[in-house]
């Protein structure tokens, strides 16, 4: 199968405008004859569901949480980028486009990224109109900050809760459509499968998480807005419920999965404190503006620290290694996320980690406090310091913070064309669930932008284009394909409950997480990946023979929910490893030990790997087939990133 990305022809800046003109429209009176399913109610899902309902389509919106407002977009802290150039510092749509392509290490599509930069400006207008309380200057106009090493101030923010405020904006728009009767909400409902009839996505099968009822929902199009799969690592900054099930089920029904190995590791998270840990908490990247990253120069001192024989403040200046400042004199502590993360891992691997587990580095505010005073530091980071103290019990004003990288975002996802349609007609993927805009690495404050761009301003056009060519008739929910999918889901529930093994679901999840983190984490190599593949296969086998899922299928059953998700993570994990193994280069969030410059930086191979890897599922136990979508760069020149 040849992948057709359907990028419109013509100059970059006119592609989207031309495309919008060329796509088919659905007559306003006929829109109500179409039903659209939206799975997930985060930024992408809520905005898409609301916008499609406003146009007149009937929408069913599903989420596993108890309310659409709790989707994990809510936890995004930093901000949202937009090429408004309100600060008069030379920003433009082209610059945002360029930064995103470059930041993604030249592994994303020019056409998609340019459109993203174009609609970014509309997003801010839309959110302000909804009553999103963005930060403002005293003059009453919107404030911006520079974020994630960008050279311009284009990030709009609402204190450290930008994701929350944007999601509540989209949620309010969604709620309005619920009140209008155009959206029907299905909270505490998990999508278990996509139903494909005559090659087109025609609905989904769901499990009501309270009653356990397996139900079919027929529609004309299905939009998956189900987020990323970072929880394959068990420990990540994702929510406990974040999962890959919807995307993975779609994959098994014919949707190709792209670049699964591209995972973003965020450098400033609170380190793991013990085996009991269930999730990792991100500390805003802005801390690196004033905090200095260091570890002791010698292993001996680090060991004393770990045994608590000395306190961090006792370590003399000449015994401290400010490794980022030394290695990257011009960017210093502000190097991009992947560089900062890898260097932290490197010094900890050398045995210079500073906490009991040996996996932490210091982020020290001593000098900032001496320079600006404690009050100034409190003014900037007070809430973050409080949060840190609450979680760790240590006072960062008195002793340096400890941080360590953690899985944060996944750039890979379902393959989609320019219309955000997967390889299954009528099945769309929006937001983090698709692969399209961030290449091999996502820039700070771009995830919120992409989710809302897809939901508010792309899908409402492109879904209409598809529906215009479709008859009004719905496939009845009694159709054999729905029945078959329901039976499969029921059989799987039964199977999981009947194994009655000896180990809990979490046991397997933690084991999988360890394998992924050790062998497919911040740095990978062929030997480790090959080993990981075997380990995952063995673990999967063990899971299906020895997992213990208690209770019944006809009630609220958290371990059953989890078992479904972990079963899918086990399959995805294998594909991630496969993808990482095949990509014999380093780029962005994918760093292969074998492919680095003499200075230890990621070494891309544009000649052989400037493509999107799209994997096709061929059946249980079979290796997946690789399809390649060559990336064409007509507007940017591929260069090596350097932060020296």
């Amino acid at each position, binding site marked *: 199968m040849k992948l057709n990305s359907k990028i419109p022809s013509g100059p970059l800046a006119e592609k989207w405008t031309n495309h919008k003109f060329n796509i088919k429209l659905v007559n306003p009176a006929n829109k109500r004859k179409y039903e659209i399913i939206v799975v997930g109610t985060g930024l992408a899902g809520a905005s898409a569901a609301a*916008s499609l309902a406003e146009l007149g389509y009937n929408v069913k919106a599903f989420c596993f949480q108890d309310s659409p407002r*709790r989707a994990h977009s809510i936890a995004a802290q930093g901000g949202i980028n937009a090429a408004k150039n309100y600060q008069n510092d030379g920003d433009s749509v082209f610059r945002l486009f360029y930064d995103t392509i470059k930041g993604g290490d030249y592994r994303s599509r020019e056409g998609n990224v340019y459109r993203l930069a174009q609609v970014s400006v509309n997003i801010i*207008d839309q959110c302000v109109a909804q*009553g999103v*309380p963005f930060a403002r200057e005293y003059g009453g106009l*919107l404030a911006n900050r520079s974020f994630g090493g960008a050279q311009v101030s284009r990030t709009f923010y609402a204190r450290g809760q930008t994701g929350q405020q944007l999601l509540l904006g989209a949620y*309010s728009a969604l709620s*309005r459509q619920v009140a209008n009767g155009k959206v029907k909400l299905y909270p505490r409902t998990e999508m278990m499968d996509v139903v494909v009839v005559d090659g087109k996505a025609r609905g989904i099968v769901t499990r009501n998480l309270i009653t356990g009822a397996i139900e079919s929902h027929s529609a004309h199009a299905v939009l998956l807005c189900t987020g990323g799969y970072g929880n394959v690592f068990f420990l990540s900054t994702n929510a406990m419920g974040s999962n890959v099930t919807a995307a993975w089920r779609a994959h098994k029904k014919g949707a190709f999965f792209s670049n699964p190995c591209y995972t973003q590791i965020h450098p400033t998270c609170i380190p793991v404190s013990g085996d009991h840990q269930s999730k990792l908490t991100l500390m805003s990247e802005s801390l690196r503006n004033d905090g200095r990253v260091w570890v002791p120069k010698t292993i001996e001192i680090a060991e004393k620290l770990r045994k608590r024989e000395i306190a961090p403040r006792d370590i003399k200046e000449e015994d401290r290694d400010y490794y980022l400042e030394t290695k990257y004199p011009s960017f210093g502590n502000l190097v991009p996320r992947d560089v900062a993360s890898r260097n932290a891992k490197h010094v900890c691997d050398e045995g210079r980690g500073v906490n009991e587990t040996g996996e932490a580095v210091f982020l020290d505010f001593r000098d900032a406090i001496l320079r600006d005073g404690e009050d100034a530091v409190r003014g900037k980071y007070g809430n973050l310091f409080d949060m840190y103290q609450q979680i760790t019990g240590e006072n960062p004003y008195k002793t340096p913070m400890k941080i360590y990288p953690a899985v944060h975002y996944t750039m890979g996802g379902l393959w989609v064309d320019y219309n955000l349609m997967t390889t299954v007609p009528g099945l769309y993927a929006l937001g983090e669930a698709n692969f399209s805009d961030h290449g091999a690495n996502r820039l700070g404050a771009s995830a919120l932008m992409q989710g809302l761009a897809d939901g508010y301003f792309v899908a409402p056009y492109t879904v209409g284009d598809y529906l215009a060519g479709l008859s009004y008739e719905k496939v009845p929910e009694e159709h054999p394909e729905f029945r078959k999918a329901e039976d499969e889901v029921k059989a799987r529930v039964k199977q999981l409950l009947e194994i009655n093994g000896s180990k809990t679901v979490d046991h397997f999840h933690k084991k999988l997480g360890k394998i992924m983190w050790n062998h497919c984490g911040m740095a990978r190599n062929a030997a480790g990946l090959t080993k990981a593949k075997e380990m995952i296969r063995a673990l999967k086998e063990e899971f299906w023979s020895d997992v213990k899922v*208690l209770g019944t299928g006809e009630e609220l059953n958290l371990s059953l929910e989890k078992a479904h998700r972990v079963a899918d993570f086990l399959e995805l994990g294998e594909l991630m490893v496969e993808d990482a193994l095949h990509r014999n280069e380093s780029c962005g969030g994918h760093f292969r030990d074998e492919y680095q410059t003499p200075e230890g930086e990621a070494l891309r191979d544009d000649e052989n790997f400037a493509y999107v890897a799209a994997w096709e599922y061929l059946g249980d136990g079979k290796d997946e087939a690789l399809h390649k979508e060559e990336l064409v760069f007509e507007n940017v020149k591929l260069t090596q990133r350097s932060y020296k």
Partner: protein
Amino acid sequence: MNLTLKVWRQKNASDKGDFKTYKISGISADMSFLEMLDVLNEDLSDKGEDPVHFDHDCREGICGMCSLYINGQPHGPNQTTTCQLHMRSFKDGDTITIEPWRARAFPIVKDLVVDRSAFDRIIQSGGYVSVNTGGVPDANEIPIPKVIADEAFDSATCIACGACVAACKNASAMLFVSAKISQLALLPQGKVEKRGRAEKMVAQMDAEGFGACTNTGACSAECPKEIKQSNIARMNREYFTASVSTEKV
């Protein structure tokens, strides 16, 4: 540390339910309260007993999904969410009583899980600005004084966890409702509809069966996002002004 947990167990909405006592050991001070419950659940699963069901998701204090009435206070002794409550707030040998949110409008689903969809229905009744996607003015078209934007933000930080309802002796939802009414009444974008919004949201709040406010201030004192009492005063103002001024009879 070793702890005794008294946990409310209830199979489903129609079950009567009662307290079960569990002993738990090997809890470290660095664990969050929910991680302590994870340990309990692993223990229970190993013994073949149904784990304790409780709501949780982001575990970083922002999604509002976690709840739990711990030793007589929503989200426990600190003014945070339960997921941000750490075991260092307890002592070895403590007995901890864990109950679900109790309110007519929040029926129990199972164990400690309650149904908070009443909050969604209140927002659906008017907690939005009626603008469609597209066709909106430029974001900088309407300057908003920083103090007003900040105040609106303070109200907008509500995470809809329901601690206010749980803490209130009347199971009143006024802090939640007033936070949304305030946010939108303060901003020029929301002012257009502020009268009707106040009337509709209050009517829905009453229809859901929440109690009335007696100004005890328990809601604000327990709110993990420190939503202020002044929001309730503003809601009252908005509502009374709307009642006497709207043309609708």
